[in-house]
Every structure is written in C-alpha cells, then in structure tokens.
C-alpha cells in the first residue's frame, strides 16, 4: 500500500527518496521547494493529501551527534481514502526567516503554524495572523526550544484585546461598518467566555455582532496550557502515562492506550492478546463515556436538562466500575508500555454488562425525548453546517468529520488490536450540521457497546504483560525474593524504557478523532521530543467558519457539538 505512495512520489519528484517509518512514508524537502511539493501533494488527484494532520518542529540543539541545522519542521499529512500517511521534513536555516506558509492550502495550517511559532520561534512567511496561541501574548522566548529553562514560568498581566484580529476578520469577510452606521446601528463586540458555563472550560470566543447574528469571530485558547510537551521531555516514557490522563480527561484511558501504542509500535512490541482485548473493551467503554459527556452537555446547552440526568447518571455510575478497576475515577493511568497495569478484577463481566444495560436505557430514554422532537430539529438541523471540504481542510477527524459524510475512521482504515475482526458500523452524517454531529455520537455509543459485547465474549485468558524485562517491570514476587528480578526492576525504574534513536508518528482513533503522537528519541529512556496531535485543537481552529452568520445561541450549542476538551486543546 505504502509502496504505491512511494512510487507515485518518486515519479513526481525523482530526486526525493521516500523512506518508510512504521506506517508513514517520510520525505525530506529543501525549503526552496517546499511550496511546490506541498501544493502537488494537496492538489494532484493521484496524491490527494487532503488532511493536514499536524505541523511541528524539532530543535536538535542537544541531540547527540546531530549534523546540520538546528531546526527542522515536520508536516504530517494523510490521504484518508487510501490510508496513506506522509511526513514531509524541511530544515530551517534561520528561524527568523522561517518557511513559507501552507495556510493557503490547508486551513489547519493556520493554527498549526502559530503553535510552531509560539513554541519554537520559527516564522512562516505570508501567514495571515502569526502570533502566539498556547502561551499568552506577553510571554517572552519559546518554551520548546532546548535552551528554554523548564522552570521559567511567566505570568500574564493584561488580557489580549483581540481588537486588531476581529477587525481583520471583519475586513476579510467584506463587512463594512460604515454601511451599518448609515442606518443608525452599530456593531457590538461580545466576549463569550473565557470563564462561562457555556464554554465548558476556559475558551474565549470573541464575536462581532449585528443584533444577535455573529458577523465575525476569533477565538483565544491556551488558558489550560501547562506545558505537557515540555514536561514530557523531562520524564521517562512510563512516567508520561499519568500525564496523558489529563489530555482528554473525559476519556483518560483512551489517551493512555494511544500513548503506549505509539511507543510500543516503535519498540516493535507485540502485546499479549488479552491486553489487546482489554484495550478494545476499555477503549470503547471510554468512547461511550466521552460521547455521554458531550451529548449530555450539548443537550443542556439547548435547554434539555432532563437529558443530562439520563445520560450523566450513567456516566457517573460508570465511574464506580472504572474506579474498582483502575483505582481512580478520572485519572485512570491504566496502561503501561508492554501491557496493562492490572488485569480485570474478579466478576468484572457482570459489572460491565450491568453498566452497559444501564447506559443503553439512559441513552434510549434520552433519545425518546430528543430524536423526534421538533424543537431539537428546528434548532439543530441546518445550523452551523460544515462542508466536507472545509472539515478536511481544517483537519477535522473523528465524529466531527464523519458527521459531514466522510467515512474516515482509523479503526476501519488502519485497524489495530483486531478491530477488523469485529462486526460494527461506522455511522456517518449527510449534512454536517449540529444534528448530524449529535446523531453520529448517539449511534456510535450503540456501536461501541456492540464491539464491547463481542470482545467480552472473545477475550482470551493469559498474561496482560509481555514477558520482556527491557520494558516490563518484573512481577512483584520476583522483585521481593530474587536478585535478578530486583536488578531488572532497578534498571527500569532508574533509566526508563529505552527506545532506539529515531523519529516516528503513530495514531489512534480516540473519541474525538485522530489522537497522534510524534516522537523523537535519542536512544535514552526519556523522549527527546514528544508532540501530541490533539483532535480538539483542529476542531476549534475551524470553529469560526461554522458560527459566522449564525446566532449567538447557535454558537453555544455548536461549541458543545464539536466537543472541545480544554485539557487536550491547550495541553
């Protein structure tokens, strides 16, 4: 499969040699040719890399034995139809000059390049609005550069006015305020958030209003930025797992799985069958949890508080099962590189099945209230429509992308953990409006439950950990009583799991879309660099496109319908 992409690339660019790294094809491109190459990758029907998943940079300042320049920018692209994953790497000679922007090709590049600029100080020529995004506007320096001290925090003393930005957005939309003053009315500027119940977290939605209609919108994020990536560079691979809990905290265990899956794929570890099935069962269980939160909150925004009880009660009850299993309600930290932290406890099947039935009942009750309810239809059908082209351009994945009618799901298109042997549907929408986003999530709950039931039937007995003392802590018995066990234990705790030097990307279908991790390893037990590809970040980057021209109340329910989770958005 990937060979065809290599052939196609070779035919188009004879002097570029594609390499294969795990699932991805990697090419190195000189900065002068970057634009030509990127344009072809996007527009040639043969290549059709319509999804720009992520852009990040690497600072090689302290990388052992590194030759050549200090910075390199990495673009991660995907052709979703054929499951092609491509990484384009370009050296940056001078960060001040930087590289040309690709935001004209993909909408997703707008925020992605801002993040690279913010974290690494690499400029993008021609970018429409190159300013900080995760760190505040008064921040000095670039935290992910290797010479930035991890303990050097900086405080923001004044809010960002965002006036220039909203005026620019108005101008870009061709709205002239003078025509409004002719009829004795004027534009009103309104902040929704950052701290408002309707934003479900701290996000600032800044709008220019004509009456109740939103004429232009810019958004400010980063209120929950805590430097996940910088912290990760200072922790061993296993120590990062508890930090991933705090990305999308509505489905903490999915992040745990996504993260260890990415590390294991590079180490070439095949986890045990039981561990795989556990990950399928728990992953789908948490997908259900995530959707329950999203739908419950979304329907509250719409005024349907009763739905909240029917859906959220079951989420709350699920936490009892989760805490019995993992030892915590929210922060599960339940995977380890090479397997699972613990096996299921005795009698888990009955608890799980009881919980699934309760969820089905809650969801069905809620559906009886909303499915054929005209108020819901009138509010959601045809509002905040997102076209499939726009969704792809802004890097939407997961249920948000599928609601526009694009059937891209990594479980189907790039299956792992035996997903191809399960029987389930991928629900997709047809219009890409709020209604579709809600209904796709409702349907996915039932499909996930279907997968869980199949997996519970098929889960084999056996160990949940690989038997490999390079990655797995030895059983406690051996640590307490055997000198060899103790020695291995010692080594792993002090040095961490060592990964071979190199760079790779691996991703997982999380509840909100493609959750990816880009690693750079220098061969030690700590990642040299770790970048998250957060699905929420890209969903939020296209938010203004959905709400401009709609009413304030629609913007609120739209925010709920794309399910923005601050922990993952801001990292």
């Amino acid at each position, binding site marked *: 499969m990937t060979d065809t992409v290599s052939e196609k690339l070779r035919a188009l660019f004879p002097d570029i040699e594609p390499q294969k790294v795990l699932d991805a094809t990697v090419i190195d491109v000189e900065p002068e040719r970057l634009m030509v190459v990127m344009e072809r990758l996007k527009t040639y029907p043969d290549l059709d890399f319509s999804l720009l998943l992520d852009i990040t940079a690497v600072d090689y300042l302290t990388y052992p034995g590194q030759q050549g320049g200090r910075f390199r920018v990495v673009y991660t692209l995907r052709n979703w139809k054929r499951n092609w994953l491509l990484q384009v790497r370009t050296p940056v000679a001078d960060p001040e000059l930087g590289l040309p922007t690709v935001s004209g090709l993909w909408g997703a590049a707008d925020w992605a390049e801002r993040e690279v600029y913010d974290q690494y100080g690499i400029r993008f020529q021609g970018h429409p609005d190159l300013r900080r995004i995760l760190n505040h506007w008064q921040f000095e320096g670039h935290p992910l550069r290797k010479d930035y001290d991890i303990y050097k925090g900086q405080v923001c003393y004044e809010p960002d006015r965002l006036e220039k930005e909203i005026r620019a957005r108005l101008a870009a939309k061709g709205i002239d305020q003078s025509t409004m003053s002719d009829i004795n009315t004027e534009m009103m500027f309104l902040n929704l958030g950052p701290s408002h119940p309707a934003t479900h977290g701290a996000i600032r939605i800044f709008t220019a209003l004509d009456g109740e209609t939103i004429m232009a919108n810019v958004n400010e994020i980063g209120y929950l930025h805590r430097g996940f990536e910088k912290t990760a560079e200072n*922790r061993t691979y*296993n*120590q*990062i*797992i*508890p*930090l991933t809990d705090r990305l999308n905290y509505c489905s903490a265990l999915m992040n745990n799985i996504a993260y260890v899956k990415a590390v294991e794929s590079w180490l070439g570890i095949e986890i045990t069958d039981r561990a795989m099935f556990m990950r399928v069962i728990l992953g789908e269980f948490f997908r259900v949890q995530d959707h329950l939160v999203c739908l419950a909150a979304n329907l509250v925004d719409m005024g349907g508080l*009763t739905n909240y*009880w029917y859906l959220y*009660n079951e989420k*709350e*009850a699920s936490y*009892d099962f989760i*805490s*019995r*299993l*993992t*030892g*915590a309600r929210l*922060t599960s*930290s339940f995977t380890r590189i090479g397997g699972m932290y*613990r*096996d299921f*406890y*005795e009698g888990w099947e009955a608890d799980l099945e009881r919980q699934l039935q309760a969820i089905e009942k809650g969801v069905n009750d809620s559906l*009886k*209230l909303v*499915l*054929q*309810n*005209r*108020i819901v*239809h009138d509010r959601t*059908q045809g509002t905040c429509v997102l076209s499939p082209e726009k969704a792809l351009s802004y890097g939407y994945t997961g249920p948000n992308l599928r609601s526009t*009618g694009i*059937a891209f799901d990594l*479980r*189907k298109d790039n299956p792992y953990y035996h*997903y*191809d*042997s*399960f*029987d*389930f*549907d*991928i*629900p*997709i*929408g*047809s219009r890409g409006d709020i209604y579709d986003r809600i*209904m*796709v999530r409702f*349907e996915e709950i039932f499909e996930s439950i279907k997968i869980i039931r199949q997996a519970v039937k098929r889960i084999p007995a056996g160990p949940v950990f690989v038997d490999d003392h390079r990655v797995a*802590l030895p059983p406690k018995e051996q*640590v*307490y009583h055997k000198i060899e066990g*103790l020695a291995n234990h*010692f080594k792993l*705790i*002090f040095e961490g799991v060592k990964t071979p030097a190199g760079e790779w990307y691996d991703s997982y279908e999380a509840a909100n879309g493609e959750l990816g991790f880009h690693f750079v390893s220098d061969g030690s037990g700590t990642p040299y660099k770790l970048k998250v590809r957060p699905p929420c970040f890209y969903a939020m980057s296209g938010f203004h496109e959905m709400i401009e021209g709609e009413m304030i109340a629609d913007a609120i329910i739209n925010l709920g319908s794309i399910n923005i989770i601050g922990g993952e958005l801001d990292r």
Partner: protein
Amino acid sequence: MSIKVRVVERKGRTFLEQLYLVEVVKGMTVTLGHFFRNLLDNSRLYVRHYPEVKPEISPRWRGRHRLTRHEDGSVKCVACFMCQTNCPSNCIMIEAGERFDGRSEKMPVKFDIDLLECIYCGYCVEACPMDAIRMDTGIFSVTSNSRESLLIGLEQLMETPGGFSEVDYHKGGG
C-alpha cells in the same frame, strides 16, 4: 465480520413530528415514568447522602499513602529512593540515615510527601521493592486549611493503618 458505513437517518419530516405535540406528550410519559418510579422507590436514586454515606472504595483505590511496618513496628522502608525516582511529580523527599536493627543498612530519617503536588498515580507503590509504601489507606478526601499540613512526614505516614485486609489487597493485584 465486517465494518460497514451507514448514513444516520434524518428525522423530522413526518407530519406527526411536524405537529410537535404528539412527540412532546410521548416525551412527557418518559419523564413522568421516571418521576413515579423514583417517587415509589427512592432507594434507586442516584443521590448519595455524602458524607453520611461514603462512596464505595475498592482495594485498588489509590488513596493517601502510608508506610508499612514489620511485625515489630519498625519501618519497612530501606531508603532506596526508588519511589522518589519514579514519581512523575517529584513530590517525595527522602533523607536516608543509618540503620542499626540489622535489617538493612539504611532507613529514612525524613520521608515527606507533598500531597498538593501528588497526582495519585501510584508510581511510588509500583517502584517500591520492599512493599514499604502503599496507597491502600482508603483515604480519598485530602483536605486541609493550610498548605503546610499537606506536606506529610514520616510519622504521619507510619501511623496511618491500611484500609483493607492483606487478602483483599493482594486480590486487587497489589
């Protein structure tokens, strides 16, 4: 076994749905059903009368820490610093001193955990080669009026008893 793509149905076109009232009455029956069921039997309500009624805490629960002891009451910890090394939030601070009871060479003279920094991940328990630190106290609510009192030390850690029997604890996988 197969994965199929299915387009979700768009409701709202039929006359009955357009009429609005019929569906609202149907919805109302669901709500009233819940109402009467809860009225007649409120034992199944999802309300917990906390703090009178405590939530269920299982043996796997990662609660506040404690340091375990030998039968004679001496501390099991040998001040090997494994827990401190494995802690992702760097909130364990140990000082080692000499040990004279013949069990090992070292023991902690200071063992502080900053509970405000702790993320309750359980990595310290996982790292300990002596089964000397555990989070099985069942203490899930860590609150205080002052920051200082949340930096707990050796004495407090050794005083706290375990919340579960050894059998239950090990069944949980500890």
